[in-house]
């Protein structure tokens, strides 16, 4: 289509201004967070626009460690994150591989069940699981948070892997099998190395969901302060300090939770899109 240059110019101008305006609006809350996290206490409760605080109060990033056991909470959170990553990397890829490649009896039925659990709201499992873990004495421990993750209990990850694995050409699979490679060998030596994008994408999700989880730590760890995660610590900080009190410190703590996520996202972002969407995974 031949478009006249003026119309094209105007269209571009419109697109760029819309995008820039949108991006600025999206960024304002984050900029405000950074700015507030560096303010002194008396500065936060006055109505005043001040992007770069004066003075810049770096001390907040020291004080926060005395307000909450942040390091302990970070360690606790990492236990859950580690379990989640293991589950996403080993059991989930194995299951995805089997669903994609190995024609075992009952595969269709089981895959149907897997898809069904993706639609199963968490709320119908919440109470029985709590009672179950309470019965075996696992409340106030990491058990209920770690065990499901270690088993790779996440239908969404398995589904993503399966879709990606199905896109790997049959020839590669066949020739490896003919050369005497076992299923385990094909999975580990061929499919895993070929699937870095989807593995990266799922790992980011696994990290993110474990890092952000709130309801489960609240229910299972709420009464055991030594095992609190960062999300619980942050929520409690707000509660202790009151709604207005130390908003600056609440934002400092928020920054401590946001920065690791940004780092993970920065290193994984180039895989995020290709991994999730490869081979039309959304059409299943």
């Amino acid at each position: 289509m031949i478009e006249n240059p003026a119309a094209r110019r105007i269209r571009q101008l419109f697109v760029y201004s819309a995008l820039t305006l949108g991006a600025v609006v999206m960024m304002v809350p984050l900029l405000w967070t950074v700015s507030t996290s560096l303010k002194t206490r008396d500065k936060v409760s006055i109505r005043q626009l001040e992007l770069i605080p004066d003075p810049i109060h770096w001390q907040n990033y020291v004080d926060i460690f005395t307000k909450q056991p942040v390091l302990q909470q970070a360690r606790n959170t990492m236990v859950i994150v580690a379990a989640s990553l293991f589950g996403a990397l080993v059991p989930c890829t194995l299951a995805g591989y089997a669903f994609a490649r190995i024609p075992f009896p009952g595969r269709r039925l089981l895959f149907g069940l897997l898809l069904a659990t993706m639609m199963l709201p968490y709320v119908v499992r919440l109470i029985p699981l709590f009672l179950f873990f309470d019965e075996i004495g696992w409340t106030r421990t990491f058990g209920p948070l770690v065990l499901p993750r270690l088993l790779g209990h996440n239908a969404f990850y398995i589904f993503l892997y399966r879709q990606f694995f199905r896109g790997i050409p049959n020839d590669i699979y066949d020739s490896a099998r003919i050369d005497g490679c076992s299923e385990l060998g094909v999975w580990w030596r061929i499919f895993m190395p070929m699937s870095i994008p989807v593995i990266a994408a799922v790992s980011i999700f696994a990290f993110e969901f474990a890092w952000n989880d709130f309801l489960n730590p609240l229910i299972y760890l709420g009464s055991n302060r030594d095992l609190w995660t960062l999300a619980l610590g942050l929520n409690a900080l707000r509660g202790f300090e009151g709604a207005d009190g130390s908003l600056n410190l609440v934002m400092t703590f928020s920054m401590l939770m946001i920065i690791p996520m940004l780092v993970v996202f920065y290193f994984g972002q180039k895989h995020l899109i290709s991994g999730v969407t490869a081979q039309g995974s959304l059409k299943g």
Partner: protein
Amino acid sequence: MNATIARQHDESWRARFQEWWFRCRSWIGFLFILPWFAGFVIFDLMPFAYNLYLSFTDYQIGTQGAPPWIGLENYLEIFTKDKLFSKSMYNTVYYLGFSVPLRLIFAFLIALLLNMRVRGMELYRTLFYVPSVVPLVAATLIFAGLLNTRYGLFNHVFLLVGLPPVRWLSSPDWIKPSLIILSLWGFGAQMIIFLAGLQSIPSDLYEAVAIDGGGGLRRLRHITLPLMTPTIFFNLLIGVIGGFQIFAQVFVMVGVDGGPLGAGLVYMMHVYNKAFRDFEFGYAAALSVILFSIIFALTVALVYTSNRWVFYGDGAEDAA
């Protein structure tokens, strides 16, 4: 003649052996999915069944042995006496009704703009996506600060443009809009899914429309929208299922009672309160069964009607 029969016999045995061997090997597949299957039984199937059973009992804290069976009593109480049931359902549907469509529209529009071969697309994409990476508790507290009546940025801007300040989190009328605003900040994940869908549309389709003399709107109407219906459908479904289960935002922003007059009391919060504050597990289980039934019915309805508006270009082969 005999030799032929013998050979056939022999071959059939061999075929049977091979089939048997193949089946054995294929059990490896089951071995591979065993961890997931164990998880499925322990964390999905059994809890689901037990939850259903619990909903017909009067299980409370300290109940010893089998909880007393009370039939439909929990359900009767929910539908006839429980004022918070209808209130929390109303609040949740209100939240959903605005949050889900608005998120979809924003995500789709921004994805469309980003897909116009914009220079610096990666940067814009990142800027729009980054808010979705912010942990939910942090995002909620950030907005609790921004929406603060006295010194929050929102009221600051309102005053600058001459609007009266709003008591966002302390007035019953504004709690739900506040939650909706917070949810809009996180449309980035859906935007990424839309963007990926848009990028998979073959460009020769657009060229065909261009040759026929079709402009931008026609391209959108006749190519982009139809081809994007599976993605829109996916995002809609996920959005509705997720929206019904909103919890952490409300817990952090307005607390377990849902703020003034319970205007922010969402359904999950009601379930949580019944289970973990009142310890009426049977009653809470009944509440959760109702939520499940609603989500299930809605999912079935969406999938059923999707035949009419979702376009699956490559047939149903992939669904196997």
